[in-house]
């Protein structure tokens, strides 16, 4: 599966300044794994040491937060858009 990953501003320097990259993977875990393998600079920013999603990082598949789908096991299809965004407050 090839999916488009949209990177937040803070991760772009680690990806050579790109805001959108294409990576392979059938689940969010695989997509993030491919991303880290290709851009070692993002390592440690997305996942905690025990392998779960960092609490200040939100990952979305086509606008839906994966925490409320199947978390890192959420499946992705060819052509899906995965967005990584920092958790932000409102109010």
């Amino acid at each position: 599966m090839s999916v488009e990953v949209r990177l937040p501003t803070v991760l772009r320097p680690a990806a050579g300044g790109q805001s959108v990259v294409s990576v392979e993977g059938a689940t969010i875990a695989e997509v993030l794994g491919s991303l880290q393998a290709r851009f070692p600079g993002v390592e440690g920013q997305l996942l905690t040491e025990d392998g779960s999603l960092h609490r200040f990082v939100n990952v979305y598949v086509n606008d839906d937060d994966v925490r409320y789908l199947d978390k890192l096991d959420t499946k992705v299809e060819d052509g899906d858009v995965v967005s990584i965004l920092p958790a932000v407050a409102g109010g």
Partner: protein
Amino acid sequence: MALYPSILDLIGNTPLVDVSALSPNPSVRILVKLEGQNPGGSVKDRPALAMIEEAEKSGLLEPGSTLVEPSSGNTGIGLAMVCKVKGYHLKVVLPANVSTERRQLLEVWGAEIIESPGSEGSNGAVRAARALAAEHPEWVFLYQYANPANPRAHYEGTGPEILRDCPEVTHFIAGLGTSGTLIGVGTYLKEHKPDVQVWAVEPPSGELVDGLRSLDDGYVPPIFTEGDGEHLLDRKTIVGPRDSIEWTRRLTELGIFAGISTGAAMAGAAKCAASIDSGVVVIVSADGGWKYLSTNAWTGDIDAVVERAKSIIYF
């Protein structure tokens, strides 16, 4: 009763209006709770009053006290109104890129505005306010993101009102913000109707928070964590500015003049309605459209308005 001793007695008991004419699924009703009907103009009047009354009860607030609070606007405005009535001084830490009207309303109520960098969004305002509160222990810091009176105002007010006015509710959708509305209403509804689904909508944080230095600058409100938000919510979805504005415009066809975050909630309701066979979706309209007139959200060229909305905080 039509005679009230104080404007503060008008907070809460907001109307629920049927907007099913806009539902993409004829078997799904959509109802909007118009929080813009509160006297300060937004849903935030509820937590503002609840937090202040709680602080008065506990002795934290005394006559003439000074408060400091981070806000992207509505909480600041609600607090400023309550503080004006009760005689407290309020300093609001406000991101520089909120709509002009939010600033003007704070000035109406005599609140002092302390600007935080727009590029850090609300997260920057929270950080700055926490630093100020630490430097000035004499100031009262209600801290809406961690104050249990915030979700409690919705657990005791908004939630019961929804169930009273619409016992057939199947889905509840609101903007995330501090998470006070979602935690308070969601907890209440699920206690009384465990099958109710709770959905959060949020704006894409993208370009608004270019100033965050790392993902560690992200922020999850303590009330979300303490209210076990991750288990309470059934779904969380991003709604971009274009969808938000298009739905804000569609609402005017039914005579509803609401703020841009209401359009986001409507977009979430439409997505929800399209994904279920039948049901009754209740959404919260956090505020009316008045504070966004300067953005030309209703009448401007849609592309230009969307571009502008990307740089303005409207949640």
